[in-house]
């Protein structure tokens, strides 16, 4: 009898050991990748690197200003499209949970969330690149805004659902019209949750490469024309990482470092907001 209890206890302890080991071992790849990117990238980054376009093959130096400006413009344009649409749809879904439209819209959010990013690239290619006849920053922004939408919608919807109904009832009972209740009471109350959803979605799309391959395409020169091809950080990393030249690899390491830092800081910042406001996403 005693022996069996001993075996069972040992089993339990061994199992715990295994679980703890597996759970912590998986942070190793993350740490290794992070440290390696930092090690390779941090010394590339300086003022010259941030303000110059990539040097041609054979010349050392050069920077990634074209990709920085491009990523900024494209992410900004995607946000301008996706944030209003996302928030308004999220409001609709949280306000009308039981209509037919909200059922199908919710289904579509789930579908969009699952669509592989490369497929979004193909579709936007046929919607915008082909009719315009050229790769363009605007098509890249549309592709990325499609990637952004489901995250913004879901975070808005879930944040607003958590608000107590008494807030809305109190405002309505004072005779405040519906749109002002939503825009002046409900949305400000859920602001932190919506904001963190937006930041997460930006962190997601800024590193997206696949949809940009057939849309924004890339451009070795600094360009701010939104109807022309435009370079972005992830696309620059892709082209230069797969090139055979060491100078270009160095540019890509520097760009990876900047991209990684941006994404990590955005994520950590979001975590802090959600913790402070006690939001569950």
């Amino acid at each position, binding site marked *: 009898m005693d022996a069996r209890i001993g075996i*069972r*206890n040992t089993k*339990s302890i061994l*199992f715990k050991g295994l*679980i*703890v080991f*597996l*759970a*912590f071992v*998986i942070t190793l*790849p*993350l740490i*290794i*990748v992070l440290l*390696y*990117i930092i090690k390779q990238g941090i010394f590339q980054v300086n003022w010259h690197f941030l303000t110059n376009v990539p040097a041609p093959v054979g010349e050392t130096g050069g920077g990634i200003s074209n990709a920085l400006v491009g990523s900024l413009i494209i992410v900004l344009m995607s946000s301008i499209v996706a944030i209003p*649409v996302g928030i*308004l*749809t999220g*409001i*609709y*879904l949280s*306000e009308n949970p039981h209509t037919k*439209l909200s059922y199908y*819209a919710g289904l*579509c959010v*789930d*579908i*969009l969330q*699952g*669509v*592989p*990013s*490369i*497929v979004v690239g*193909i*579709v936007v*290619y*046929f919607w915008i690149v082909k009719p315009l006849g050229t790769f363009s920053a605007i098509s890249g922004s549309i592709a990325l805004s499609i990637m952004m*939408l489901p995250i913004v*919608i879901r975070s808005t919807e879930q944040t607003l659902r958590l608000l107590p109904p008494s807030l809305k009832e109190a405002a309505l009972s004072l005779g405040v*019209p*519906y*749109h002002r209740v939503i825009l002046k009471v409900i949305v400000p109350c859920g602001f932190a949750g919506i904001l963190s959803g937006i930041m997460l979605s930006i*962190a997601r799309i800024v*590193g997206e*490469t*696949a949809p940009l*391959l*057939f849309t924004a395409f890339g451009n070795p020169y600094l360009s701010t024309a939104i109807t022309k091809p435009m370079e972005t950080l*992830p696309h620059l990393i*892709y082209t230069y990482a*797969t090139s055979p030249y060491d100078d270009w690899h160095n540019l890509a390491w520097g760009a*990876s470092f900047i*991209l*990684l830092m941006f*994404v*990590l800081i955005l994520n*950590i910042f979001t*975590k802090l907001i959600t913790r402070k406001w006690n939001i569950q996403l």
Partner: protein
Amino acid sequence: MTKNKRLDLSYAQMRWETVFRRILIIMSAILILLVVGILITLIMQSMPSIKSLGIGFLWGKIWDPVSNIYGAYPFLIGTLLTSFTALLISVPFSYAISIYLGEYNPKGWLSNLLKNSIELIAAVPSIIYGFWGIFVLVPVIRSFEAKIHIAPYGVGIFTSSLVLAVMIIPYAASLGITLIRMVPSPLKEGAYALGATRFEVIRSVIMPYTRSGLFAGVLLSLGRALGETMAVTMLIGNTSTIANSFKEIFFGPGNTMASVIANEFTEADHTVYLSALIELGLVLFFVTVVINLIGKRIITKFTNH
């Protein structure tokens, strides 16, 4: 006069109210149109290939655009092999994380730190995993392959699976953590009161209770793995021919549906070629959407209980 003005104002407010409600409805309708539009575009654009290649396209073994022969079999195999290998590697880890953070250590700074680092794994852009893989993992795999006496490509299906495995862990893990924390404590306490050890409680109470939910998490991971493009494209070697033995396929270079689209879409110079690539995208779209929807359905069912 003032009374009229007030009335006008409140009429204006009422009009705005209707307008606002309409805007909400229109936005949701736009979303549905967007998804329907994506589907229609994919189907329309893959029509030429569906018409000229038929259903046999899916198991045609040869992909040779130069001679106008298109078969998706190498990519189907590549996609399935990478995804399921990645899944196989990742499942023990994501279950372990779920159990550790859901049951053993749900609170405290260590738990938070670990949970946040797991979520950071998903935050790192896939292009960075790919870049890192080319310069760090590929040489390691190459020397490993040389040691076990197979052609030392370095790149290939096995290498992609490894990176993919790491990338998809967070999707199953973060769901698993939430679900395991939802197991009602009376159930666990009852088992403890009967003299069960921790391991027995996990095996006979927590696991059966959360089985369907954890499975849904695995499905979400699988959906991610199937559609993942950049890291795989950079590491898989991009060969559209398929080797003869399983060992050569598994350790050698290959192609997935997503990676062949990424590589060849802008080079596709005639209609059927382009359309065949889009048909691959259509298949990918259907498979990932169905897997995701099943996963979501299971989760909704689980959380409503």
